[in-house]
């Protein structure tokens, strides 16, 4: 019983438009997640994250490819793997006329947990999500972020062996996001496997042990956040606004990564002084910092994750 938690092979998905053209949302995505791993799919809006998550969680049929969950064929026999799954859908909402406590409790009961287990798990998950104070108010009176936390609490309270969370922290304040991250870490320590999607770079970095950068339906890179940063080609980033005019000169110091009209020079400590003086000569402002996942993303995808188009 050492099979991976999830294995996807060349998963393709074409949405057949009823009135518009067909859309190829996934063009052969393969990935492998071992048991107990916390993995993030990082990508811009429309990259195909939700499509992949729904296929992997047996809720959407792929056009072609293979999906195995705990060594079982999830496409041929979804029913056999579903008991091990739990899903936070993108933009889901709890029942408006249940309290968060009722929401989590009734869901656990529907999954077959005993009253005692359901009660203690629901209470624990609500505490973890910082919902203790509003746990007995109807969801209709809660804020968007609190509702989202209710969804996450409901699903993590299952402690299911494999959990899929689609943009779990959307609409949450930074403090709540940290609580969510902490609870995910706890879950994987207990043995659950977590696959989440996000378009927050900090979330992907803080939370995942490995991440997959996905764009236009393809996996463009895979690795730990550190590995991806190293692959950019340096440890420091010098960012120069409107630096196009001196790009030629800058490129001798290391790879350039563009983000709109900002030119990032990826380099090491050695060239720093010289780059700064080149920028100063051209009357341009330069800022220096460590290479972040942002540059790694730009390097791999060619566009910023914030770039809407």
């Amino acid at each position: 019983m050492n099979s991976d938690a999830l294995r996807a092979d060349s998963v393709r998905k074409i949405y057949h438009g009823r009135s518009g053209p067909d859309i190829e949302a996934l063009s052969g995505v393969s990935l492998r997640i071992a048991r107990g791993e916390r993995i993030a799919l990082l990508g811009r809006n429309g990259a195909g994250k939700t499509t992949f998550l729904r296929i992997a969680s047996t809720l959407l049929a792929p056009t072609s490819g293979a999906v195995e969950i705990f060594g079982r064929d999830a496409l041929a026999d979804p029913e056999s793997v579903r008991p091990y799954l739990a899903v936070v859908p993108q933009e889901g909402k709890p029942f408006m006329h249940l309290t968060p406590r009722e929401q989590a409790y009734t869901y656990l009961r529907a999954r077959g947990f005993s009253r005692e287990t359901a009660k203690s798990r629901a209470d624990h998950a609500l505490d973890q999500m910082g919902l203790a104070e509003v746990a007995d108010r109807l969801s209709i009176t809660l804020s968007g972020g609190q509702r989202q936390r209710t969804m996450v609490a409901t699903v993590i309270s299952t402690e299911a062996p494999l959990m899929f969370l689609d943009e779990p922290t959307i609409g949450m304040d930074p403090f709540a996001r940290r609580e969510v991250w902490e609870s995910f870490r706890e879950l994987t320590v207990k043995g659950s496997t977590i696959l989440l999607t996000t378009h927050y770079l900090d979330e992907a970095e803080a939370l995942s042990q490995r991440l997959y950068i996905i764009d236009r339906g393809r996996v463009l890179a895979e690795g730990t956040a550190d590995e991806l940063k190293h692959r950019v080609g340096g440890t420091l980033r010098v960012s120069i606004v409107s630096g196009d005019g001196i790009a030629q000169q800058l490129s001798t110091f290391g790879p350039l990564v563009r983000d709109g009209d900002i030119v990032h020079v990826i380099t090491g400590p050695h060239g720093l002084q010289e780059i700064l003086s080149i920028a100063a000569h051209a009357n341009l402002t330069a800022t220096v910092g460590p290479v972040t996942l942002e540059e790694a993303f730009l390097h791999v995808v060619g566009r910023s994750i914030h770039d809407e188009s």
Partner: protein
Amino acid sequence: MTSLNAALPAVARSRWRGLGALIGTELRVQLHELTSIATSFIVQAVFLVFVGVLAREYLSYTLVGAVVFSTFQIGQRVQNEAAWIRIDHKLHELYHASPMTPEAYFLGMSVGVLTAYSAPIVLLFGVADYLVALAAPVALLLVAVLVAEFVFTASVGYMISTWFKNMRSIWPYSTLFFNFFGVLPPVFYPLFLFPKALQPVALLLPTAGGTALVEHADGILPLPTDWVILAAMSLLVGASLAFVGAVYWARRISRER
């Protein structure tokens, strides 16, 4: 780290696991819609008043029809509820990616809605019994008809609910079904007022057929035996097929294409 390599917990699988819990959930949710429950028999009440004023002699027919039609309407609510939970809440994904089977999800939601909205039926049933004095076998037949009626509408409603991508596009269909199954055919008025040639056709509808069966058993609507068989078979076969269809469809649609 031993837990990572441990065998997966065995999950006892059963087709109807979680059914009771979902019925309870849905009931709890629906009971917050008291206004909606309280107003759910306004149409029936209005028809009763109209008939009571305009044609008192037909009031018994209208009463039976109102009970049957109320059940039909609850099936329609299942359609809207299933669509709402799927389109607006996406909660169906939580239930589908779980030990619960898609058919338990469908049935749990249906029975939950039925339970919450059954008050009008019980009330009308009481009134009908008081005014028309239903004999025990007739009352039993009425219950059986209501069950078949509900199974039919809730099943068809659940299947229909999955075809829509937004709520707005569902509303016109509710109006359509409402009129096609409830207002036009002989449900609130006796079958013999319906065009003669179309009477057997009306009996094929679960609403009109079910109503006619109960009225026939109660002795207020004489029907030829083959028409009785036609209405009974149509209701029975219709409900069975619809239920089997809904179970099949619930399983199939639990993974979208």
